[in-house]
């Protein structure tokens, strides 16, 4: 008898070795170009915002878990991702304490109060941003020009700036905006990395951006205008890094398409019809809330089952 120490557990007894932490690390790597560009364009304030937001999110995560007496999860790096994304969604002149507050809202209220990682129904970083926009409207809507201290410039989506920028300017980010949204090139670089590492599928970003492009073309009446729209504001940042958040997007393939189309359509609707210049955050958050319904409606048929057929 040698059985004394045998482990008995359910199959399978092999694992791919992939972990949540590795996925989060890949997302962070994909965000590195955007962070470098943010500091390059907006200077040390951008770096300070990133550091403050990450620190605030990690501290919030750690303390929440401590207080709730739940297993510590700060090591899974998901709070770091939220912190970086929140920072990239803020203008460089935002007071640091306000940025820190955004992190607390994102982690404590949106994530941990609903049960922590995997249980939040809206994107924590986006809600953090929205709360800051509501609370500190002036600070959140002041966008300094890259490289020029003390001078603000309208974002490309402001009514008086519509069409004011050359597309090349938008591509490389030499215009007003939050620290992480202006430089399209680095965001696309991150997108390529996420695809290469198979962290995300291209469905949501492509359908989201594609929808904005097509609808803007119809509404604004030209390819230039449509291209201007997809390179402006937070669209690429949102479509690549926020709308693809696993927790708050559908798992079904068709659901992803519907979700992303909804994000795109709402973005165009808010940009053109609403009082706000930019609508990506709100569009994603609204669609986040619809995810359970979308998933229910788009559930895949099990192997061999015919549509409308009786399930066995």
């Amino acid at each position, binding site marked *: *008898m*040698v*059985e004394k*120490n*045998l*482990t*008995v*557990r*359910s*199959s*399978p*007894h*092999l*694992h*791919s070795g*992939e*972990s*949540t932490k*590795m*996925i989060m690390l890949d997302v962070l790597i994909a965000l590195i170009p955007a962070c470098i560009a943010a500091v390059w364009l907006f200077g040390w304030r951008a770096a300070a915002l990133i550091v403050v937001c990450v620190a605030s999110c990690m501290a919030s995560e750690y303390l929440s878990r401590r207080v709730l007496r739940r297993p510590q*999860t700060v090591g*899974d790096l*998901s709070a770091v991702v939220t912190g970086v994304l929140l920072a990239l969604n803020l203008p460089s002149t935002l007071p640091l304490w306000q940025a820190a507050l955004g992190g607390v809202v994102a982690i404590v209220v949106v994530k941990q109060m609903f049960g*922590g*990682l*995997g*249980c939040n129904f809206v994107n924590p970083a986006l809600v953090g941003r929205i709360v800051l926009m509501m609370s500190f409207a002036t600070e959140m809507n002041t966008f300094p020009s890259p490289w020029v201290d003390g001078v603000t410039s309208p974002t490309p989506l402001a009514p008086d700036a519509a069409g004011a920028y050359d597309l090349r300017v938008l591509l490389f980010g030499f215009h007003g905006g939050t620290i992480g949204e202006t430089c399209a090139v680095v965001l696309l670089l991150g997108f390529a990395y996420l695809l290469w590492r198979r962290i995300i599928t291209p469905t949501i970003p492509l359908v989201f951006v594609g929808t904005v492009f097509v609808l803007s073309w119809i509404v604004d009446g030209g390819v230039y205008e449509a291209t201007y729209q997809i390179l402006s504001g937070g669209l690429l940042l949102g479509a690549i890094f926020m709308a693809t958040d*696993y*927790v708050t997007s559908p*798992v*079904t393939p068709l659901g992803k398409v519907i979700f992303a189309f909804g994000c795109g359509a709402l973005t165009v609707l808010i940009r053109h019809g609403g009082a706000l210049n930019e609508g990506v955050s709100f569009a994603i958050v609204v669609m986040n809330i619809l995810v359970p319904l979308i*998933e229910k409606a788009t*559930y*895949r*048929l*099990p*192997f*061999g*089952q*015919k549509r409308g*057929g009786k*399930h*066995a």
Partner: protein
Amino acid sequence: MGLFSRVRGVKAPHRKNTADRETVKMSVPETVILSMAQHIGPPCKPTVKVGDTVEVGQVVGDSDAFLSAPVHASVSGEVTAITTIVMPSGQPAEAVVIRSDGEQRVHESVVPPTVESYDDFVKAVRDSGLVGLGGAGFPTHVKLQPKNLEEVDTVIVNAAECEPYITADYRECMENSWNIVSGMQTVMEYLDTQRVIIAIEANKPDAIATLTDIAKTVSKPGREVLVHTLPARYPQGAEKVLIAEVTGRKVPPGKLPADVGCVVMNVTSVSVLAWYLKSGMPLVEKRLTIDGSAVKEPKNVLVPLGTPIKDVMAFCGGYKEEPRKILMGGPMMGIALRDDELPILKQNNAILAFAEEELLPAPSACIRCGRCASVCPMSLTPPVLATAYAKEDAKELEKRGIMVCMECGSCAYVCPANRPIVQTMRLAKDLVRKAQKKS
């Protein structure tokens, strides 16, 4: 073979360390424990008493039930006990214990059967004691008597062997190629099908080459023997996956392969059948892959059925280190055993012993990444099912297809949060079964 597999799955490591180890016949064990429940269906009843002298090939257990197969003595000697053992699944089963006299005298009933008709054929298959040797243990004669026999046009011989480590079927292909092909031809003839296809994963090129050669020489118009190369992707060997891959047909939930015109047989089953028709020797021994980090001499061993696992291990040089986990079957679907006293069963194809448990991280929260759903060969969406299970919603579980889950483990293999998905699916299926019984 297409560039892309028709069905999903995972790229599990192959670890076919014993592929080149030729089968060695194990010495006769002191005692064998023959379980009466070595097939799916009602268990057999012992047909011998304590004190009886038995010989190799003699029936020691049988049942009147259609869904059953007889059990034969694998050694000659004396019945010392009729007892109850706990099977790997946790279910109790009756077992006949035989003390070997080491002589391996063959019973008089072991003579080649006379097979002249389909009825003779299925009777012979039943008498051989054959069950699905791929692991399921479904009585082979039942498989060969589908209700819609005339609609069956394809026999598929499953040599995929997609589980990591296991090379028992591969060795069968290499060592008994002619038996396999002759068995295939016999099945094709009596089921009156046009073709029989042997399906093998691409990671076994030698077996593919050998069998292709033989298949070419024996194929004739209207009775074709074909070799189909499968992508080396787990779980190609799962019955429904295999049928879809080879024929493009999908077996609907709750239906059988015969409903889409297919009969699937494991390659070793086919080979053993051919051997039985030639020699009359029923299923009394089985080739097993013995491997794993705790085994001193990994090898392929031909083991008398009912041999306690510890004896097989001793034959393989014993344990290198104290085993921490012993698996009956492969690492993806195998059952973790409580001890090594359990006897070898007909449908076993591997015993793996590991010194250190493969490092499995503790489960963390589901992040809904969807990897489980994207690899599920049955197109299920585990997060949705897990939620329904948490709510004990049997109706929703059934509607979302829980019963087609075959527990292949692809989902849990890729899960970055290392959730116990298969375990949840098992519990969920149980919940549905209980709800069905109630209503």
